[in-house]
């Protein structure tokens, strides 16, 4: 028997293999899943925009924090290399952060006052802050539960 003959026999044996049938109700299950429908495109779009917004906020916060650390790097390093300097460096950073926060709070208060003056209906800054926190938590929860649709074809 030549190798070609063996190839032919293998090919014909594979071609003769029977097709298997899935269990009863397979078609019904597939059709039911199709009827359930895919997540709406607009829903995925909103999640994406919300996620991007949240990411942008976190990035801005990280950037500001990094900028403070970078601006004071020399002083922090100088403090850190002295005996007991590490705790002093931490204190220094905390003081800088507190100063920055107070400036931010003052800026936010100022912006809030300006906005209040511009439009009397706008809620107070702490109400907006609370709403932002609630929205962020909701977005995070939705993002965890939502499964992205990947075609991958």
């Amino acid at each position, binding site marked *: 028997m030549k190798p070609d003959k063996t190839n032919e026999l293998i090919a014909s044996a594979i071609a*003769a293999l029977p097709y298997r049938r899935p269990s009863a109700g397979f078609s019904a299950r597939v059709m039911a*899943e199709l009827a359930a429908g*895919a997540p709406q495109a607009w829903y995925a779009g909103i999640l994406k925009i919300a996620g991007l917004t949240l990411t942008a906020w976190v990035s801005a916060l990280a950037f500001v924090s990094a900028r403070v650390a970078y601006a004071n790097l020399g002083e922090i390093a100088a403090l850190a290399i002295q005996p007991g300097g590490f705790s002093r460096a931490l204190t220094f950073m905390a003081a800088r952060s507190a100063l920055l926060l107070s400036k931010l709070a003052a800026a936010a208060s100022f912006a809030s006052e300006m906005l209040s003056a511009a439009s009397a209906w706008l809620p107070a800054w702490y109400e907006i802050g609370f709403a932002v926190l609630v929205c962020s938590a909701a977005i995070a929860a939705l993002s965890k539960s939502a499964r992205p649709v990947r075609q991958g074809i």
Partner: protein
Amino acid sequence: MAETETELVRRCLEGDNSAFAGILEAYQDRIYSFALRLLKDPVAAEEASQEAFVKAFRGLSSYNSAYHFSSWLFRIAHNACMDALRAGNKTVSLDTEDFPDLPDRSAGVEAKVEDSITSERIEAMLAALPPLYSEVLLLAYKENMGSSEIALVLGAPEGTVKARLFRARELMKVKLYREAGATF
């Protein structure tokens, strides 16, 4: 059948979801059998087939009618099966596979080999092959696809498909000759 298939796809694209039942009926056995022979588990094969059909339905607008619908559907099924194999921590790599030479064959051994090629034996040997080899054999001989069409299904170069097909046949032959008592 091709005409009907095109018509069914067109109706689906126009929003008639019930037309997909026709596609499902036409392909469910082929896709399920393909998945079953790769995954070797009826439950996993049904899940992969279901996932393939759902993905096909949702991605129908991306189907290019210049190609066979079956190639497109088998490509989705192939992806679903590979995902299932990876999820089950089963390797789909070829790295560990060795390719022994064909044994010396005497006339008596060849006759034994010819007699031993039955559907049951072939089914068992396919199951023992790594999935990347069994799938090229199934696509080539069971689904009657050419190497260019298999390349589309696997998303691999045609040369790779030809090499896999050759090696898959060699592995099958080695198993057949070993069972028939040939010496290496």
